[in-house]
């Protein structure tokens, strides 16, 4: 294999690094210091959601907990799926390993359950 296919990658990396260095060093010197709300928005483009909900559009923290809990199962399925596909080939050893893995995930789950992370109120 020759160099050629990877030259663009390296070029981009160098360009990116130079650009980052340049903009970081120049910004405090020449940039105007006008902070406004849009700077802190997650997306700087697009229309603002209207009407603004009460309290600036914040959600109860419970939604965050639920979303984090979902991630536990999300992670679990990533590994369960390939295992299920080649279940036959992996045999007993694979089964035991998978049980151990699921037990570990459930340890986290019982912690959340006992600490009341599953109660909505």
């Amino acid at each position, binding site marked *: 294999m020759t160099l050629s296919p990877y030259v663009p990658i*390296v070029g981009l990396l160098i360009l990116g690094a130079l650009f980052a260095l340049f903009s970081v060093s120049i910004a405090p010197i020449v940039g105007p210091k006008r902070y406004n709300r849009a700077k802190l928005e997650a997306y700087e483009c697009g229309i603002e959601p209207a009407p603004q909900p009460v309290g600036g559009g914040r959600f109860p923290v419970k939604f965050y907990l639920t979303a984090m809990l979902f991630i536990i199962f999300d992670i679990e399925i990533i590994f369960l799926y390939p295992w299920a596909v080649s279940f036959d*080939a992996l045999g007993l050893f694979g089964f035991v390993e998978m049980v151990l893995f699921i037990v570990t995930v459930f340890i*986290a789950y019982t*912690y959340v359950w006992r600490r009341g992370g599953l109660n909505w109120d």
Partner: protein
Amino acid sequence: MEDLNLPPIDYAALSPILILFGVACLGVLVEAFAPRRARHPVQLVLAIGGSVAALVMVVLERNTRVVTIGDAVAIDGPSLFLQGAILLLGIVSLLLIGERSLEAGGPFVAQAALTVGSEKDNRQAQGAPGNTEIYPLAVFALSGMLLFVAANDLLTMFIALEVLSLPLYLLCALARRKRLLSQEAALKYFLLGSYASAFFLFGVALLYGYAGGVNLQQINEAVAASQNSDILLYAGLALLAIGLLFKVAAAPFHVWTPDVYQGAPTPVTAFMAACTKVAGFGALLRVLYVAFEGVQWDYQPVIGTIAVLTMIVGSVLAVTQQDIKRLLAYSSIANAGYLLVGVVAQNREGVSSTLFYLVAYGFTVLAAFGVVSLVRDADGEATHLSRWAGLGRRSPLLAAIFTFLMLAFAGIPLTSGFISKFVVFGAAIDGGQSWLVVAGVVTSMIIAFPYLRVIVMMWLSEPAETTPTVSVPGWMTSAAVFIGVLATLALGVVPSPLLDLTNDASLFVR
């Protein structure tokens, strides 16, 4: 469908790692089911007992030299030595973390979810028992470190890096007092840490493209024979090195260190300064010596330059510090520079001297942070240097201990700091890197100044009205400080047993 061949697994060699992972999971279950009152003693015993059991297994397995579990983990001299060192230092840090007599409820917040400054938060600061999740978190971090130094492929190394980093981010955020500072430290550590690990990962991806695999031996062979573009190799190595150098706090990837060391609870800072440094350098050594031996002439000057830069940044900025924790942070950066000198030496003495330095520095820094946690006033720890003025008159014993530790950092003979600098510089001269030694000696002289300033301040200033009191330490902090001071002295007076041990342990399996 035919059965797959299972890789052989040497469970005995892996047992220290497995024990700690098991103990950490058990700790989570204790959090879930044990009554609130029982949690602290149970968790403490579990964490320390688990670490001791793992240490015993490391000692029993001391002659094992094996690459196991599908070439993912290499249990050899350096990894066993480093695992032992991490466990020893980890046990001492756990003593500091578990201390509850200095402050009602211990140094950690009772409930991390309480909003800072709220009514409930003020009440918890008055002495609600600190939370006990810190123990499973610390044990998870320890087990990640054990795996990190033994990882024989880059994927395992990446996973171990995250397993050790993620609990540390959380531990930083859990201080009982000055919680905003603590959370800010955690945020900075988290953002910069995951930024660095993203670089590490992209480096892994490029090296995978270069070598067709991420096993260290495979990369080593590819370096010698691969037809692929060298650009992939160098870009991959550079990105990988950024991730590792960040963890060991080498300049220019050191900016997080002072902030995080200052903001984090002092026991956690001690834990990071001692154990994370060992783990980071262990992985750096393995990657550079096993996988990239073939390009050592290419990376040596680069790492050497970084070493010089790290020593200069650490020592010069240490001079201007006004806060004892920040001062120790910059000292930790400078020490990372000296350690890099040993890494760059690229010979067997380089490995063994780095191993020695890591252990010696770890014990000294643990004792130093142990002392820092004792100097307190009504608001918690008094870390500003001006508050330390006249401490020698108030409590001579503590000031004497701290003076000894400062002298050890400065590298005065009869302390471990002298021997460790001596062996590291000796290895560098053998490796033909004399310019690093020159830089090392010059910066050692610069950094002696801030250490001496602290000593002069403690002994020669009059105690002011505001000089804080020194709390009477509980047995755990006393033990931790005592072990640290004893190791600093012992390694300075009779270093040969540990030097022999590091010599025996300095060969990587391939």
